[in-house]
């Protein structure tokens, strides 16, 4: 008999449903447990680099905010180092977790992250990527979590040289990946699941 490739199939995704908070942010859902919700704080002390906030709303195809959404972000510290077990390029900021998890507000849908401006990280071929944050969105009605990236609209030069941004087939959609500076250290990143402003989502 011909040999077999003994690989397993990734577990199929299923929607997080309307009650994702119970499992991933139970204290937000009113269940007092674990002494707090994971990912609610990205800073555990004084951090290096520029502290920033990112606010936004995730809209469905009718322009209605998703009020039952959960969004997670993952990013390097201000020096471009990940607080990850496999980071070998240096010692990341010990007071920065790199990982945040936020609900959409149950009335307005607004989410907020209190983080730092990420440093640049190389692409696999060694070129530098523009500073960016990886984001992942789950909610009722979303069968498989949506990956996107948050870049910054005040990083023109880095964005122009970014290996991914510069290869996007429809450049008119690039602004959907740019967080807009709204003040000193404040950015806005709204996400559209559908429509003329549909955010670019990644298969990455």
């Amino acid at each position, binding site marked *: 008999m011909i040999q077999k490739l003994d*690989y*397993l*199939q*990734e*577990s*199929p*995704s*299923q*929607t*997080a449903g*309307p*009650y*994702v*908070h*119970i*499992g*991933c942010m*139970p204290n937000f*859902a009113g269940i007092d447990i674990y002494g707090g919700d*994971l990912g609610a704080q990205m800073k555990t002390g004084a951090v290096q680099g520029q502290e920033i906030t990112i606010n936004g709303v995730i809209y469905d*195809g*009718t322009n*209605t905010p998703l009020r039952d959404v959960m969004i*997670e972000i*993952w*990013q*390097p510290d201000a020096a471009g180092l*990940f*607080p*990850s*077990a*496999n980071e070998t390029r240096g010692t990341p900021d010990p007071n920065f977790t*790199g990982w945040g998890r936020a609900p959409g507000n*149950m009335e307005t849908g607004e989410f907020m992250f209190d983080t730092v401006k990420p440093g640049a*990280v*190389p692409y*696999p*071929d*060694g070129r530098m*990527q523009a500073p*960016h944050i*990886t984001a992942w969105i*789950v909610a*009722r*009605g*979303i*069968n*498989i*979590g*949506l990956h996107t990236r948050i870049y910054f609209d005040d990083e023109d030069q880095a964005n122009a040289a970014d290996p*991914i941004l510069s290869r*996007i087939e429809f450049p008119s959609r690039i602004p959907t990946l740019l967080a807009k500076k709204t003040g000193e250290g404040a950015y806005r990143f709204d996400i559209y*699941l*559908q429509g003329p402003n549909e*955010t*670019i*989502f*990644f*298969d*990455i």
Partner: protein
Amino acid sequence: MSLIKQTGGYVPRDRNWQPDALTPAYKTSIKRSPQAALLSFPTTLSEESSPVFGHKLIGELDNDLILNHAQTGESAIGPRIIVHGRVLDEMGRGVPGALLEFWQANAGGRYRHQKESYLAALDPNFGGCGRTITAGDGSYELRTIQPGPYPWPNGMNDWRPAHIHFSIFGHGFAQRLITQMYFEGDPHIKLCPIVDALKSQKAVDALTALLDMHRTVPMDSRAFKFDIVLRGQRQTYFENRKEGL
């Protein structure tokens, strides 16, 4: 001479296997599904790294839903079960240190959530959430009560099969996954528009836990086995990256 093992990126997600964003029978997906093509790129450091969750994070009762929200001396109501299995990658390697978070309805099919309106009673001793971290071989277990099926607004008479939601964190953000575990033999599995988002019977089977009499605790709890597979990372002895990474 020692060969230095290079790690490549994660194997791409099999989009012919994973559910599509748009599955009209699950009505909410219609206005919440992106319509443009996804932008495909190989994983980079941002997707090949992930936060570290130490075993210290986990409290003694975190994986015991029968007790972790119960008054002292009391316990949650419902059929007592153990769910166990391994977290593996696509190459079959165990994934140690993976964070699993799980949540579910109580035995009557009712969630503890302010937006939940099903008339089934709340169980004062049941919160409905738990978490654990996989051991060195990728194994995990939790104790809970078997959740009940519940009705949900979609069609006029749609019921979810009994299920436990799982959120899984592996070693790379590319592996991030949320899914649901079903129970062998549940007649609602075939009727559910959310299950029907899966593309094949094989995919449904991959999310269906089997009764495992070997792990049952006699006179105490039945057991179900549920393995979870995360995306695998290529490993090669051949360098295909430039210096500086």
